[in-house]
């Protein structure tokens, strides 16, 4: 028997199986990837392991002994530590307090020993090689990438035997992704089990020893990661059908007519003199390490930030005052945080889709129900949103379907310029493929797409041209044969400075 053995695990919610008779195993000393589309049961399986859910049937064996996991604290006792996809830090406490919450050392008077706490935190940072972390900074004030690292350290500080990393790389900066992959390897070498979940194939190929695939709550199979691994086979195992090609073939439709342009634009510390042009009919990728101004670039074009410098739209100088203005002038943004900026989670799909064009659907303030229904059904069909009804709450949808609803809302405004912020983050492969096709279709219609992604491969395969940002400036501009991963990553980390920083 292996070191972590799951036997016939089943779990259902109100009659629907989320997990069905799952039997699989992991060995000490391996990094084991769990693959599957959204809704395949990965999260449910993790929650069974971490004690958040109790399985209806089945047993878990750890080092050959039956484990009884009924609560998160039980899981901790068995040495299972889980870094969840949603961050769960407390913004007003310091980094050190967050990491050691519940285990903060005390002085002999019973109050907290801040000196000792600081020492423990610094020791932890040294051990895992994150010197830039400030133990006394408020957790709410550090960057997203650092928050994710903080969460990882919180789990590691408990010295777990089994480490679960659920989409832990999605918020990390590029160099920290490598750090995490190396860390996973190191933990495995120390004899731990690392369970790794990611939607990025490259990471899985780089950092994992074995892959187990789930589909529709069922266990499909396990493959070793080596030179014989057939990625196409893995993908078809996930999807249950043969996938012709993961990325679409692209035909360049870009024109020489600029849709959006920035001339020497600055904003706080985020944008330090940006010069760039986005042409009609083009998909322009935005690359770079996390936090180099990409988010602010997109938000500036959407009127979220008041920037200094010149912004031009269709050759005219404009002042993009707020999102309302942007939408009225045919600019639309697919925002970074789907659940916060993109969707009203407690409201229905119909409300979510029609809200941005509600004024157009109304006559003398009264909403025309018929027009609204037509609009909603048109775009839910176009994007094939899967839901019980258009009244279903957004919170009840899977990640991929939620992203489709956001996309439907954006498209119902009929924009000419699309700003897309990492639209495939946390989205299953099937939906990813649909999104890629959609993005290319939009460009084909002569519309402009500014496409930010943290996945370099995606940028390489989807975009006509890619600009790279570093330190709030455009430091690279690649097109055609120059558009490849090496150039993008090189410019991101500043090895080769190529292309023009003056736009094109």
């Amino acid at each position, binding site marked *: 028997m292996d070191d972590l053995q799951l036997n016939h695990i089943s779990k259902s919610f109100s009659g629907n199986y989320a997990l069905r008779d799952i039997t699989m195993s992991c060995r000490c000393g391996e990094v084991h990837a769990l693959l599957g589309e959204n809704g395949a049961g990965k999260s449910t399986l993790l929650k069974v392991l971490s004690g958040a859910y109790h399985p209806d049937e089945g047993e878990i064996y750890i080092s050959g002994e039956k484990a009884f996991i009924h609560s998160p604290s039980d899981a901790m006792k068995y040495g299972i530590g889980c870094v969840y996809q949603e961050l769960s830090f407390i*913004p*007003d406490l310091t980094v050190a307090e967050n990491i050691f919450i*519940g285990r903060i050392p005390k002085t002999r008077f019973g*109050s907290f020993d*801040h000196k000792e706490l600081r020492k423990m935190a610094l020791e932890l940072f040294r051990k895992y090689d994150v010197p830039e972390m400030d133990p006394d900074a408020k957790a709410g*004030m*550090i960057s997203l990438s650092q928050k994710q690292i903080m969460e990882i350290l919180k789990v590691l500080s408990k010295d777990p035997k089994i480490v679960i990393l659920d989409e832990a790389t999605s918020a990390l900066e590029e160099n920290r992704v490598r750090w995490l992959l190396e860390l996973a390897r190191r933990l495995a070498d120390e004899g731990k089990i690392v369970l790794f979940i990611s939607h990025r194939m490259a990471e899985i190929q780089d950092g994992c020893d074995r892959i187990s695939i789930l589909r529709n709550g069922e266990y499909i199979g396990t493959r070793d990661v080596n030179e014989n691994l057939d990625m196409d086979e893995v993908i078809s195992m996930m999807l249950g059908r043969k996938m012709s090609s993961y990325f679409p073939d692209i035909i360049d439709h870009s024109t020489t007519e600029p849709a959006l342009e920035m001339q020497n634009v600055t904003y706080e510390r985020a944008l330090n003199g940006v010069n760039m042009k986005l042409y009609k009919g083009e998909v322009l990728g935005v690359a770079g390490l996390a936090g180099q101004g990409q988010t602010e670039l997109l938000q500036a074009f959407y009127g979220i930030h008041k920037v200094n410098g010149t912004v031009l739209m269709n050759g005219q100088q404009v002042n993009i005052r707020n999102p309302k203005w942007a939408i009225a002038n045919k600019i639309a943004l697919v925002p970074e945080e789907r659940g916060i900026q993109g969707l009203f989670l407690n409201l229905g799909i119909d409300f979510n889709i029609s809200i941005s064009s509600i004024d157009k659907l109304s006559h003398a303030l009264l909403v025309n129900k018929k027009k609204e229904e037509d609009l909603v059904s048109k775009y839910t069909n176009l994007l094939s949103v899967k839901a019980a009804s258009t009244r279903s709450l957004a919170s009840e949808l899977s990640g991929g379907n939620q992203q489709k609803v956001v996309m439907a809302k954006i498209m119902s405004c009929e924009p000419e310029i699309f700003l897309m912020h990492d639209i495939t983050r946390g989205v299953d492969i099937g939906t990813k493929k649909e999104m890629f096709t959609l993005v290319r279709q939009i460009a084909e219609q002569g519309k402009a797409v500014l496409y930010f992604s943290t996945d370099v491969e995606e940028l390489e395969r989807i975009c006509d041209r890619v600009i790279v940002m570093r330190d709030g400036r455009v430091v690279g501009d690649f097109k055609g044969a120059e558009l490849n991963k090496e150039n993008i990553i090189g410019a991101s980390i500043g090895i080769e400075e190529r292309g023009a920083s003056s736009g094109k």
Partner: protein
Amino acid sequence: MENKRTFKQKLSDNWLAIVPYAMLIIIVAVMGILNTNTLKASYIANKCDNSFSLVLAAVGQTFVLLTGGFDLSVGGVICITNCLAAVHMQDSAGSILLWSVICIIIGIAIGMFNGFVIEKTKLQPFIATLATQSVCMGLALLILKVDGGKVPRSYMKALTKRFGDLPLSAILLVIMILLWLYFKNTKTGMNIYAIGSNKKSARLNGIPVLRTMVTAYALSGCFAALAGLYRTAVVASGSPTAGGDFVMSSISAAVIGGTALAGGSGGIIGSIIGAFILRYITDLLVFMKVSSYWSSLVQGVLLILAVALSAYGNTLKKRKEGVG
């Protein structure tokens, strides 16, 4: 590796926290210029005694505000304890002690009820404590129909005692601050901040939310009871309606002192300062010969200015966060 924050950094992060102190100093200074008597120890001692009930109520309120809640029932608790003490307390050490303990227990019980109900039923604190407030006010009226009652002399003397020019209330104030500094660094203290900061995360991190919420509201009830007891000694009578004023002014004091309504940041020292600002400003208006009719207007403007400033500070902070 050593990345200690510099003093300047700390200052730029926390300049807002200094505002209430500066405000109090300015008010006291202006009063001193208008009337030098106000700088005398005896005046300050009196002020301390007169403000102490509000200080206690504001301190209690702060615990609840820190969790991101509200306690409108402090007024009701003050009414009940004020009336109970004025009606039942006899002039003997035993009776005084007995009724003081009963009052405090009642305050804690009401607070625990509030905390339990709010956490268990997910009712909004505003509405839940509004209901408790009504019940408490009603109970106070059943104890004492109109203002009155007889307060034992020895009780009054004991609580308004002076050691030279140093009032007992000032000593209690210092003790309270010391206890707070300790409390802030205990598990319960941190849990209160954590819940106010992000309740969902707090729960995920294994913080006992129910227990902490009950504790915070119980502390509020306890301090409201103390405020009622202290008011009895200062005013020397009971009133079934006097507590009503404390609801809004305790929240005002805490907010002026820098506690955020959203929870998670602030503390009782600010609230103490805020309570003194509110009490001093009334006197200042008298000295400036402003008609008492206008005084509520000035208080309102002051409150808006204080919170507008902290709202402005928060936007600055958020902007930093967004980019940093």
